[in-house]
């Protein structure tokens, strides 16, 4: 699916599901790109691309450590956005989990109707 450029918008940059995974990993401390590649099981070019977007909106900082570049979360500025996205996602998750129960009943009812002649 084609995506609009999102790098100017902190919200989009932070809310993209894969980037949220990266941010969650960085919440556990500084990481090099390769650490993230292993932790998330995502190819290095993708990880680098996401990190670039996150840097552009100021969500992560980078520092040189010998030959490695270490990424870290840029403090508390990010947290409210991250929290909101999670809360919103959680609300819908719970709605859908409740809907599963409703759907199971509808399915049973429908199967019951079919078997009645």
């Amino acid at each position, binding site marked *: 699916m084609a995506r609009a450029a999102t790098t100017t918008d902190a919200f989009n940059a932070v809310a993209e599901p894969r980037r949220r995974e990266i941010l969650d990993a960085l919440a556990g401390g500084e990481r090099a790109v390769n650490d993230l590649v292993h932790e998330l099981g995502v190819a290095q070019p993708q990880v680098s691309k996401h990190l670039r977007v996150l840097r552009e909106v100021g969500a992560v900082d980078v520092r040189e450590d010998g030959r490695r570049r270490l990424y870290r979360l*840029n403090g508390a*500025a*990010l947290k*409210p956005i991250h929290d909101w996205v999670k809360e919103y996602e959680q609300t819908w998750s719970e709605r859908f989990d*409740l809907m599963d129960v409703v759907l199971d009943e509808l399915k049973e009812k429908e199967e019951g109707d079919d078997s009645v002649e």
Partner: protein
Amino acid sequence: MTVSSSPRAILSLPTDEEILVTREFAAPRHLVFEAWTTPELVERWWHANRGRVTLVEIDLRVGGKWRYVMVADDGMEVGFHGEYLEIVPGERLVTSEVYEGLPDGVSEEMGGTTNTLTLTDTGSGGTLATLLIKATSKDSRDAIIASGMELGLQDALDLLEATAQSLG
């Protein structure tokens, strides 16, 4: 009987004006549509375990109105309403939506969204539901998001923007 754990709802922001939620269901499209558009059924899932649904009005025809109200566990009453814009049973439902607690100075036109529910077959008898929530502008989306937050989102955004500019 559900054996495996439930599929996860996934949220993303595909553009500056949009919020996208996707989720798979182990039920055919027409039943998902029924659960989505039948008042007694909506009552059972829309509260998201955060309170009690006290009103569900659905006039399911193009131009018809809908309104949902719930009382959250902390006693706060929240209401949403809108209009049905497009109805294709079992496939697609487009509605307008307005949150009734919009902050002063935010008009319904500004703060409202257009929501598109699309249902597609997954090939294994299930349904992929995508819910696209489109705001009138990026500012409007931020207002919607901010109105749902307890504290300081705008401060956080300003801070982020300042940080980003300092990098530029």
